[in-house]
């Protein structure tokens, strides 16, 4: 990885709608994965569409929960409660094997 990485290498946005079990599960799963694999290289925004409904349109969100990786490019999207860590890492292009191997 580059030495001169920005403060937040990973800019992650999680869209939820209210305090539903799926949403809460997704938030918890994301925090766990980030702590475990990204240490301090990430920032997470949690957007509750019940509070900011217009963002569903402006950010083009259909499924809930949706995780969007805005940085690093390209943008990647994962929908679901993120309950399978390995598949989240694949989706974020963050496979543990590659990470440990580099």
């Amino acid at each position, binding site marked *: 990885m580059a030495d001169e990485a920005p403060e937040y290498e990973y800019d992650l946005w999680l*869209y939820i*709608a209210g305090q539903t079990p*799926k949403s809460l*599960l*997704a938030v918890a*799963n994301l925090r766990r994965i980030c702590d475990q694999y990204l240490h301090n290289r990430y920032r997470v925004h949690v957007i509750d*569409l*019940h509070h900011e*409904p*217009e963002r*569903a*349109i402006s950010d*083009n*969100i*259909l*499924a*809930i*929960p*949706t995780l969007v990786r805005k940085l690093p490019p390209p943008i*990647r*999207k*994962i*929908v*679901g*409660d*993120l*309950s*399978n860590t390995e*598949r*989240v890492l*694949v*989706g974020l292009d963050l496979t543990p094997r590659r990470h440990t191997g580099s």
Partner: protein
Amino acid sequence: MEFPAAITNLPKAPTGIRGLDDITGGGLPRGRTTLICGGAGCGKTLLAFETLVRGAALYGEPGLFVSFEESPADLRMNVANLAIDVANLEQRGLLLLEQISLEQGEIAEVGEYDLEGLFIRLGLLIDRIGAQRIVLDTIETLFSAFGNQSILRGELQRLFRWLRQRGLTAIITAERSGQGLSRFGIEEFVADCVILLDYRITEHVLTRYARIVKYRGSSHGVNEYPFTIGPHGITMLPITSFTLRYPVSAERISSGFPDLDHLLDGGGYYRGSTILVSGPTGSGKTSLGASFVAAACARGEPAIFFAFEESADQIVRNLRSIGIDLQQWRDRGLLQIISSRPSLAGLETHLITLLEAVEQSGARAVVIDPITGFHTISRPVDITTMLFRLFDGLKSLGVTTLATSLTNAGADPAQSEVNISSLVDTWIVLRNHETNGERNRSLLVLKSRGMRHSNQVRELVMDAHGLRLVEIYAAGETVLIGAARIAEQERLRHEQELHEREAIQRQRRYALQQRLLALQIEALQAELAALDDEMNAAADLSEARARAQIQSRLATSRYRDSTQEGSDGR
């Protein structure tokens, strides 16, 4: 309308699409969801969009169009010729076009999710214009962005429930797949109304069809209804949308041909009636049609001549040769000659084009020359159906229609046109007669409803002065026409003279006889008078004789008395 006026108090949202509201008994179920399914290119999007746009323009119901495929700019372009100002509706907040773009294949799915984001977005958009109607186009595109079938199934059902709870008149379009009507096989069960669109190509001509598969709580037309997508959007002419309730007119209008008017009880055709002129090639069908429209134009009525065999200029030129000037009426904008090939379009398109042209021009007289041209593109049964609807449609517009029909030389016209004869009010049959090295034409009014028409076959004579009808002569089994007719006329004239001469002689003989008898009567009367005289004279004589005897007897006795007194005195 013939459709039962719906069992129901089920409220309906009219689509504003001609014909569709007839077969649905008033429109789509209000506050419910309608599924429109069909393959690619069936007109799903247009049908949905038109319902939305017309609902906004005609009924003031704000509409939201959510497209998962086309951009608003594309949509606007697709309907640019609907004669409805879409931009104006958008400005007035009556129409909202929204595209929801889907990134296909980029989304990973991990664990459970739902489509709450979609519901939130729809809710926002609906509230933005207070939408009463909504279109989702197409449902497959939306769901193809996601992979978990069981989640999608559940969310689809939730979507139908949600739309219904919000009281929206919704249209969801669905791509028809394989055997079933829709991808998940539940859409058609959840929806309150299902309309299936289809098209078929026969003889290289495309015909579109719509069928209402289901309409919960309402009666509806059950047939496959052909429709067209034309410059004015979707037009459907349900076969049964016209009833037999036309305004009936007792007004008579000239056929443009005084001799023919004379045969038709002296008055011509009834206004609003349907006239069929059938005959073989060159028997004068087009001429009869042209003189009819020319007469209409001369009365100041707009008219249309639909020509399926000749170009407009050709018709104008040909009719000038028999003294009918159509160009003057074209120049004054009263006459349209619309020329096209039957094979250019499907029957349905022809039907709608014809009716639209008539409606737009306000034509009062229409000629279709000939209706038999359609035989090249369609099956007879379809043509009969189409003509049924065409004549019905024209009749309900109060238009007087003259259609020509080409018959085969040998065929009996009463047989070959039997399938449409019931549609026709006046039927004129033209025939060619080829005898003695010349060909002549004849005309017969085979039937004419509601008038005492002539049953005589007349010879139709066409020359530079126009059309004329001449009495025809029949010698036994042979009809005499042309030169033979003239010869026969001469012969008959001689015969007539002979008859007249004989009559005069008879008259003379009678007068002579009469005089003779009168003389005889006179003689007998004189004889009788003489006898009477004689009789009287004889009676007088015998009376005088008797009186004389009495006198003489008295005289004798008086003498005797006087002689006796004298002798006694001495």
